């Protein structure tokens, strides 16, 4: 395989609108809605981190929305997905409650984790999102276990793990890849390769920048795509998803090459950025997954500028309303500290 990302890592490349190819554009209107909604929600969170209203650490995925949504388009509520520290987008893309997310980052009792977890611990079982945790690499084997359960259940579900390029440096990642591969489990590994682990560029952490080379070593089907091209993300998974649903699918490794626009944690874009970041950011904004999809939908006539404007304003309203509501939610009673540790 090619051990270099070549143009996929190039901030100046892939600014053009997305090509639908054989894909039907219509479902991507809904996908655009999801992406814009995620972005607005994270912008709202960023603002409130900036003002200090939100106090828990928030790792935002602005700029990376296509990976989450493109993957989620293939998932169903009986699948079981797991995320990491930067998982607002995964949670929302799978249908997690916006109200619940906002309440959670504010530490309220109506938050999705009832104020016990904050931004880094989100779950929504009802839509198949089984939890995100900030220990890097820790949820990867857990997703493999969900895949094992799916294999036993024989209902065509899949276990899903969302993680970053940094997580591929943890032993847990490799042990998990091997286990899923040797047991041929229905597990989707989604690596959002944004080329940074906090401040450190991948070139300082790994000898090559293509994470999918590990899928080769673990003898796993895989694809490396432009993670800012939602059609590419979606297309890469079509066959694997069909196989899972047919009950015949094994593991698949998807590498979505992308870039985060904000700092590792928090709301600023000029902080904890590390090597080679500052120069790249404005170029990377040219590869904006949201704008590119919107333009493509306009080009093929699936979404007019007017419809887009309506969509955006409806989303802005929804986000504003949800935020206002979240601010009114009650805090948990102090007794919750002890009453939620053990099963009743």
């Amino acid at each position, binding site marked *: 395989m090619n051990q270099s990302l070549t143009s996929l890592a190039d901030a100046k490349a892939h600014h053009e609108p997305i090509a639908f190819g054989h894909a039907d554009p219509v479902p991507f209107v809904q996908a655009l809605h999801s992406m814009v909604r995620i972005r607005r929600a994270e912008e709202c969170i960023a603002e409130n981190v900036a003002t200090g209203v939100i106090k828990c650490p928030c790792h935002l995925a602005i700029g990376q929305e296509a990976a989450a949504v493109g993957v989620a388009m293939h998932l169903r509520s009986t699948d079981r997905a797991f995320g990491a520290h930067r998982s607002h987008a995964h949670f929302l893309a799978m249908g997690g409650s916006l109200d619940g997310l906002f309440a959670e980052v504010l530490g309220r009792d109506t938050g999705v984790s009832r104020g016990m977890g904050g931004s880094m611990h989100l779950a929504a079982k009802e839509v198949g999102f089984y939890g995100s945790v900030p220990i890097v690499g*820790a949820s990867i084997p857990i997703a493999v276990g969900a895949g094992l359960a799916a294999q036993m259940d024989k209902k065509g579900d899949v276990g899903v793990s969302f993680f970053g390029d940094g997580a591929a440096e943890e032993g*847990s990642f490799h042990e998990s890849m091997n286990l899923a591969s040797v047991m041929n489990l229905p597990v989707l590994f989604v690596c959002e390769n944004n080329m940074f682990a906090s401040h450190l560029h991948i070139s300082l952490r790994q000898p090559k920048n293509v994470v999918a080379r590990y899928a080769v070593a673990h003898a796993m089907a895989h694809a490396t795509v432009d993670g800012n091209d939602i059609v590419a993300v979606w297309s890469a998974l079509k066959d694997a998803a069909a196989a899972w649903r047919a009950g015949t699918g094994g593991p698949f490794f998807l590498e979505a090459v992308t870039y985060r626009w904000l700092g590792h944690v928090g709301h600023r874009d000029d902080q904890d950025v590390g090597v080679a970041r500052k120069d790249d950011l404005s170029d990377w904004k040219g590869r904006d997954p949201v704008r590119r999809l919107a333009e493509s939908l306009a080009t093929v006539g699936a979404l007019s500028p007017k419809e887009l404007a309506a969509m955006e304003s409806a989303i802005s309203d929804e986000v504003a309303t949800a935020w206002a509501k979240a601010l009114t939610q009650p805090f948990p009673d102090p007794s919750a500290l002890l009453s*939620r540790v053990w099963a009743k």
Partner: protein
Amino acid sequence: MTATVKTSYGVAIRDGFAHLLAKHPKAFVMGQGLWSPWYVGNSMTNLEIEFGKERVIDVPVSEVATTGAGIGAALSGYRPIVVHPRVDFMMLAVDQIVTQAAKWRSMFGGDMSVPLVIRGIINRGGEQGAQHSQSLQSWFAHIPGLHVLMPATPRDARDMLIAATLCDDPVLYMDDRWCYELEEELPPAEDVSINDIAPLRRRTGKDITLVGCGYTTKLNLEAAELLAAQGIEADVIDLRLLNPLKPALVHESAAKTGRMLVVDGDWRSCGLAAEIIAGVAERPELRAVVHCARITHPDAPAPTSKPLEQAFYFTAADIVREARTLCGR
């Protein structure tokens, strides 16, 4: 007249597995060595033949992945039992056990269940040395959200495995290879609730309280017989459930005898024995009347050479000596 059939601790564990696999379709087992004829003593013999390799799964040498997979399957409605043939190997998966499984319910608001059993086998002695002899129950009993069980008898070995598997929270079940030859007549296996597991008085005496768990309960019972021959009657309390601790019976016994010797097969500092003593000492009415002492491993890694092993591992004789000192005789 029917002959009494006794079951060994090792076989009783197997009976527990067999009960679970037969009665509970969501139960399954995974771990290293499960298809081996010798890896985990006689505690799992031929389970994979009886219940199939889909439910008794041998795995690569990957403690983190195996343990994490147990969590994922538990979150998906299964009741996995992840077997680590030695506590030392299990230590590689500490993050999964302590930072993931034990905290998952609380972190997500109280409603997410991780009905996972981790079986960590205490397998020491035999000149295996420092990296094959750790038990570290004190570590795990320190962690909120993680039940810790240590069976001392064949009956408990079987029933606690069942209770652990039926529990909706993660449970660390630690059996001890040094107990495998203990024998007992067992009633048929039944479902057991972890809520019913509490410390048990295994012998009644008025002069001194001996507290232990797992293998040290066996030693305490032996020591109690030796002490009885010397006119000292020991109350022997088997802790059984190390986390969350239920110290009431210990306190009742200590108040009665006025002397408490805690025996624990782990290191001393910040250990289980310290906890039991502190629990007494911080209660003014107990502190006033109870003399305390503890026996633990010396502050050294386990050695291999036989004479050093003898210096490292205490015996019933050591308990007798310390008990007599505490009784002033």
